[in-house]
């Protein structure tokens, strides 16, 4: 079957290195993957095309790239599913990582973030003579996170990372979850505290792209939300993220509509230095007309506020009946 691929190329050794597009026609079996097409190009059409690949069965994580604008494993993406009528399949390197050549990105960015979460078990002492005894349900829960093949699709398409290089990111946080929820790990509390700091679980903006693009159903966002719950249940609340969540909840309960300046103040806490740091941002928001003036004592309740209150009561009743166990997806 014929496919047309439009591949974003980059040759760092060119005289004036700049990305460019190159179109290829390939004739491959109907059920060929996008990776099969690229391998065909590399082997028989244009050997200069650089792409990382190995297992061809979605287990090694090498061939993450953007196909039709979205991060995917090229080996697990059928070409015929990507080729809309007459249009070429666009193939680009993954995002949020520097391109080294063609479809090859610098994964050091990715691995440095993984290392940041101390991704190894700190065993509970004393280490038993035989294996630690662990319920199988716990193992099944950890297996969801261990399914990750470190392909970087979630990092490529993470919108928080795009604007905040300090964010630890979805892959590393999902990896961290695997230790937070491992009963054999002795550093759970320290992990929860570190993960709740700046750059950690509260810096995710819930865009859900990581869930959508993950080829192994790790659902990093769900893992992030679970770490937050574990942290709050473990009393790790003295951080901007928890204060933000509590302020948000309190204001909505009291008035039904967000009082943004107050959320900001409460999130920062009673720290004048931090408060001052936010003044320039506040001024910019004001200028853009994005900061409502009706704040604090001038903030109004919305009509029908009683309904909002009743919603809170119903949620609380459900939560009481089922003590928090974390969201299972």
């Amino acid at each position: 079957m014929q496919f047309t691929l439009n591949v974003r190329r980059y040759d760092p050794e060119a005289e004036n290195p700049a990305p460019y597009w190159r179109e290829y026609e390939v004739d491959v079996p109907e059920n060929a993957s996008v990776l099969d097409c690229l391998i065909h190009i590399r082997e028989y059409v244009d050997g200069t095309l650089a792409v990382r690949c190995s297992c061809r069965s979605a287990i090694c994580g090498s061939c993450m790239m953007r196909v039709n604008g979205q991060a995917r494993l090229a080996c697990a993406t059928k070409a015929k599913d990507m080729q809309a009528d007459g249009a070429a399949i666009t193939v680009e390197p993954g995002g949020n990582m520097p391109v080294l050549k063609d479809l090859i990105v610098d994964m050091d960015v990715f691995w440095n973030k993984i290392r940041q979460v101390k991704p190894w078990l700190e065993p509970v002492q004393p280490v038993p003579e035989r294996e630690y005894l662990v319920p199988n349900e716990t193992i099944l829960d950890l297996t969801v996170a261990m399914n990750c093949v470190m392909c970087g699709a979630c990092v490529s398409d993470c919108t928080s990372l795009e604007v905040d290089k300090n964010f630890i990111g979805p892959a590393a946080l999902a990896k961290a979850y695997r230790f937070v929820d491992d009963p054999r790990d002795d550093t759970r509390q320290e992990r929860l505290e570190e993960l709740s700091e700046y750059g950690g679980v509260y810096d995710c903006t819930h865009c859900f792209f990581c869930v959508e693009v993950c080829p192994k159903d790790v659902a990093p966002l769900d893992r992030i939300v679970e770490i937050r719950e574990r942290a709050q249940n473990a009393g790790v609340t003295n951080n901007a993220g928890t204060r933000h969540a509590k302020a948000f909840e309190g204001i909505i309960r009291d008035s039904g509509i967000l009082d943004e300046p107050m959320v900001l103040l409460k999130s920062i806490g009673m720290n004048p230095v931090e408060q001052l740091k936010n003044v320039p941002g506040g001024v910019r928001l004001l200028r853009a007309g994005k900061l409502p003036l009706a704040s604090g004592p001038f903030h109004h309740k919305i009509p029908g506020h009683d309904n909002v209150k009743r919603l809170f009561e119903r949620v609380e009743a459900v939560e009481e009946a089922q003590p928090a166990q974390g969201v299972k997806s």
Partner: protein
Amino acid sequence: MLEHDVLVVGAGLAGMQAALHAARQGVSVAILTKVHPVRSHSNAAQGGINAAMEDDDPWEDHAYDTVKGSDYLGDQDAIEVLCSEAPETIIDLEHMGLIFNRGSRGQIDLRAFGGQARKRTCYVADITGQVMLHVIYEQLMKAGTHVYEEWFVTSLVRQNDAVCGVVALDLRTGALELIRAKAVILCTGGAGRVYEPSSNALICTGDGYAQAYRVGAPLMDMEMVQYHPTTLPGNGALMTEGARGEGAYLINADGERFMERYAPNMMELASRDVVSRAEQTEINEGRDIDGCVLLDVRHLDRNTILQKLSQIRELGLEYEGVDIIEEPCPVRPGMHYMMGGIKTDIQGATFVKGLYSAGEAACVSVHGGNRLGANSLLDTLVFGKRAGESAVLYADGIPFADVPDSRLQEDREHIERILARNGDDGERAATLRLAMGQTMHEHVGVFRDQKGLEQAQATIASLKERYANVRVDDTGKVFNTDLLFALEVGLMLDVAEAIVSSALFRTESRGAHYRTDFADRNDDEWLKHTLVFHAETGPRLETLPVTITQWQPAQRTY
């Protein structure tokens, strides 16, 4: 000058285990790998890792099953090491953080696997290898071991009688460097790409076999090539033996569980060589469905499939468009594993001083003529550790060798000659590899005979001649994967030649090596290993006795 007391080549399970254990002895250790460690092919081991974990399961029983599985070609001293050290290896792994599936008391659960008299396989769903690889990599990050990531060894450096370093290409920059090492450990994995199709990844090009062979280390039992009974016809991807361990059936076009006729006791869980031969017989005799038989799990509990076989369900959906919950999936025997490899002793030492090996690259031999499923992961860890520790003992106290610059120049010129042939009239490496792979599959597969093997030998010889004219499109330095592939194909042709010569040499049938012209096992003449040495005139063959400790060869039925 780059130098390390111990340099490990390859970062799969064997390589990382060797490096971790060498580093614990306090010497300077580095790993060199052509892909990031977690991209290594250990990932693909789905089903599990064997160990006699239960009190009423003596390790000797595991050893006996392994000896029998090997068709009595495995060296029994090595198999005793493998099986007696298995339980502690599993416990070490669990303490490192491996998340094995658990039984009702929270203990490590066991599943059934082929060729074994009882359940003995520890597992994590059907992603055991992946989880092991990632957990060992966690330990490597913790230890802070230096990794030459995306580097490729172009040759081993041998001075006088010892290996004392490597010449290697930094794929990111194109720089060619000499790395001196007192000891080199080859953990470069298998050579699936020598065959087409194969369940193996694109990186499994047998680099270490050819490199060791070229510096004088012999390869052992290279004719012993495992065909896995359940690979997908489309891309050769593996459907774990764990499926049959959980109770899957194999059926032919008549809907018959044909294993009744070949292995009435063990049925689908007979050893892999037996099941693959049975399938190929069914296929050859016309009871096939488009060259395949069917793997049927429809009678299994839906939750079992979703929890324990979810990855292969995805593979079926992805590559064959079959949901194994609803329909049986077409499968056929596919090239999967090299029982043979670089001959080592039980400490991982090869015949050349300073050169060690472990994992699929090595042949200790614990697998003999046929490897049992879930013994390969065990092999990587048990002998990876031993190779790491014994390389340190050797390296301790000896000086780095002086290596002349001319040694680097040789490899540089070889590369420049390939890069210079970027015109249209040379040979594409891919064309040569495909011809090699198809020939190997056709003539050196499940069934072999002299005529076919001689034909394969002639084809490989002519491909080697054509390879002298191999060309590339890419003349750049950064990530020149075109050049890398051309270099790999050159190495693979040596591996293919060694396999074919060994297969011609062994005039009997044993384990995975089935000669239709010598259909019986012949213990009088062939209860011995084949050894192949590199020589200017072509492969030179010798034999080595099999080590027998407590299990005398007997007839093998399942």
